């Protein structure tokens, strides 16, 4: 009995130590200076460069970053608003439809800084509820170990041809905002028959862009539709992938920045937006292999000029975003019915 009682001491002592440790480590200090909460999906590379620069430019305000995928940020904001309020002051994610929806619900605070005048008018919300801070571009990638450049596909439209049967992977609009934007654009230009034909030719639908990239890299599905930035980064890391800017138009997806209507730091929020739209903030976007919204600043190394891509006419401009926002629920449903049922 005594040995058993002695044995009981260890877990109890361990539990007490743990509790004490928790109390010491969990504690959160009271904030001393005003805080600006930024919810964003921008990549680590960009954030590593942008965050210190922004903090330096915003003396007197503590910048707090919550970084997650666009879907997670949106889910978090939705839940926070349902609970009454959100601590977020700035939103900076990839899904333009969401910003249009937030604007229609009156949840954004309009602001258009002078720096935004350099952004092409097609990418500018007329009321200034949200701004385009950068742009992602959806292209075709292929595994250069499997195909040579002259064998590679040249357009989105041709991916339904028998030649590509069982060789193509695309992103899942149910999981990725940029895939949703692409489906919105392609279903609008090529019709749903395009996706039905893709399904018939045994296309694989993967989650996000990095999952698509992995399928291409391993050669499982050597051709795929994914973001230019993933391909540029992979190429830099000596991955055997190559880029095709489809002749029928790479899909340009503007990524917005917006101020939350209920912010308690409106002045600091506006300062932050101005910083992001400034040449310094815009140049940081290039670190993440994305195009700055300001066409005057050079795009990522090894990429086609932004103006050329814009001229190809497959850009989710504000008019398109406005029209499609109400449709996105149906878009996901229709896509799901074609691909997953």
């Amino acid at each position: 009995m005594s040995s058993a009682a002695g044995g009981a001491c260890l877990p109890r002592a361990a539990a007490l130590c743990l509790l004490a440790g928790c109390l010491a480590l969990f504690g959160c200090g009271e904030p001393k200076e005003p805080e600006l909460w930024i919810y964003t999906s921008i990549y680590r590379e960009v954030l590593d460069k942008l965050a210190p620069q922004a903090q330096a430019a915003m003396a007197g305000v503590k910048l707090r970053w919550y970084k997650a995928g666009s879907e997670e940020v949106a889910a978090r904001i939705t839940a926070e608003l349902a609970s009454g309020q959100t601590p977020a002051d700035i939103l900076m994610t990839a899904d333009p439809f969401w910003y249009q929806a937030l604007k229609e619900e009156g949840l954004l605070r309009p602001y258009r800084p002078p720096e935004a005048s350099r952004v092409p008018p097609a990418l500018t919300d007329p009321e200034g509820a949200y701004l385009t801070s950068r742009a992602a571009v959806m292209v075709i990638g292929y595994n250069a170990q499997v195909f040579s450049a002259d064998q590679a596909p040249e357009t989105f439209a041709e991916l339904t041809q028998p030649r590509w049967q069982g060789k193509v992977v695309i992103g899942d609009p149910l999981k990725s905002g940029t895939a949703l934007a692409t489906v919105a654009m392609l279903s609008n230009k090529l019709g749903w028959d395009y996706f039905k034909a893709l399904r018939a030719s045994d296309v694989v639908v993967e989650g996000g862009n990095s999952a698509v990239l992995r399928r291409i890299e391993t050669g499982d599905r050597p051709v795929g539709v994914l973001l230019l930035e993933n391909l540029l980064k992979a190429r830099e890391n000596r991955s055997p992938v190559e880029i095709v800017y489809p002749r029928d138009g790479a899909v340009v997806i503007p990524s917005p920045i917006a101020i939350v209507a209920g912010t308690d730091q409106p002045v600091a929020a506006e300062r932050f937006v101005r910083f992001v739209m400034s040449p310094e903030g815009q140049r940081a976007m290039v670190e993440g292999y994305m195009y700055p919204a300001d066409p005057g600043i050079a795009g990522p190394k090894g990429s086609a000029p932004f103006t050329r891509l814009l001229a190809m006419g497959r850009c989710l401009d504000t008019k398109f975003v406005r029209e499609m926002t109400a449709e996105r629920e149906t878009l996901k449903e229709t896509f799901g019915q074609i691909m997953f049922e």
Partner: protein
Amino acid sequence: MSNRMRHQTAGIKPSRSGWASPAALVGAVAVGLLLYFCVLPLALLVKHSFQGGDPFASYRLVASRAANWSALKGTLTVASGAAAIAFLLGVPLGWLVAATDLPGARSWRSLLALPYVVPAYIGAVGWTYLLSDRAGWLNRLLTEGLGAPALPVSIYSLEGIIFIEGVFFSPFVLMAVAEAVERIDPALEEAARVSGAGPVRVWLDVTWPMVRRAALGGALLAFLGTCASYGVPAVLGPSARPPVSVLTTRIKGYIDLHTTGGFRQATALSAVLLLAALAFPLAERTSGSDSRSAGSRPAGRKPVALGRWRTAALAGVGAVFGLTTFLPILALLISSLMENVGRGFSWENLSLVHYWVVLRRPEAGLALRNSFLLAASAATLAVGVGGTLALMQARGGLRWGWVLTPLAWLPYAAPGTVLAIGAILAYTGAWGINLYGTLWMLLAAYAAKYLALAYRMAAAGIEQVHPSMEEAARISGASRLRSILEVLVPMVRGHLVAAWFLVFMPSFGELTMSILLFGPDTPTLGTMLFELQSYEDPSAASVLAVLIVAVILLSNALVRRLSGGRYGI
């Protein structure tokens, strides 16, 4: 002995009872925590599903969609398949490692719990390296290397999902069976043998009835866990032919609409999973016999001699471990060492660059510390609360005690995303406290999510101890609390330690809830993993998976060494 003398002399004072007693206070705190952290967030969500003009509109909408019904069918198929696999793997393995003279039985027991250490969706990624349609390493070995006809096995399939989930949850059955086997009084089996029963007969007539309840309970746990799991079906389901859809992926789809209607439909669909949680205790109650031993682990238990089957058993256990656990972890290890998975196997492609990418991140150390702290605290909290609730249930004392069991199961059956959203609704100030952006928020979510595991393990232990043991202590004058802490707790120690690990391991690499709840200063391994997986080369995510396995194996070895082999998995 001196200890016991002290008890007797100190215990002469009358024991207190009623609401003021320390035991009742502990019980009240446990119930309070249960209501506030397990029930409140989900209750708020369910309330949401009834909002709008017509309270049942979301339910009608959800029920009208054929896709939701096929998702329900998918969930039931995957979960029952996974439970069956967990059962078929866990029962023989649990018996072999606990009851027989299998060489290295103790080490096998730890190794066979490994699938549970690697987050299931990371295991799924490991398997995709091995068995993806055409590029899987094993598939290419079969077709190109061995000239097999073009019939590669694809992990992107219904069977693949069932297999991975079943293997992941098999430690539930294994640990429960092993723990139950160790508690069988060897005299019973001995008596059967002496009466002339052969080893198979002894197993079927004596051993099996004593472990049946534990085994079925473990399998039910696997069933419920699979119902609520998101990662594996999300990674593998959409690209399966035909595509596999389950309730959790549908729910996430509704949430990702980011519309009020979508959110309501997500909560309505989640309510279906919550119903499963309420039904679970009923299913478990009817699942088996009740075996109680008067003491703790029976002394003098001799391992069953496997005789000429010893080598065969070793080979079998080794093969199961190799095929279900070692291979995918090896695949993750290999992919973590490849500069780029696309360039295949070559010396030139061998690189530590991904380890460098992960370890040089400024938040890497903080994430490791946070995850360790959170997992250890969540495990301790869950064992404390779960153990108390199990005890109140087992030893009566509460008229409405039976209500507590289903309530404890609710968070376990809820998909992580749903629970996290519930936590945001409940703990951002509207309901008393604001845990926003702190580690407490994550702690509350982890402990709530895995409370049921600790609760069930503790209940299984307590059930096997006859109340007469504590009564003896109380007659000798010990208070209620003291009789529990000094008599009961040491007897169910093995169960409590197992319960602790059952909560610690999934919390350590938890992703789904963490990604919604973490704040700027509270990164965890899971949130780092997400970031690496979604943007960096996926090989970098393999690095974290390898590190998670290493940390858990090391801490387990350390705990076992320090405690002389008494604690650990």
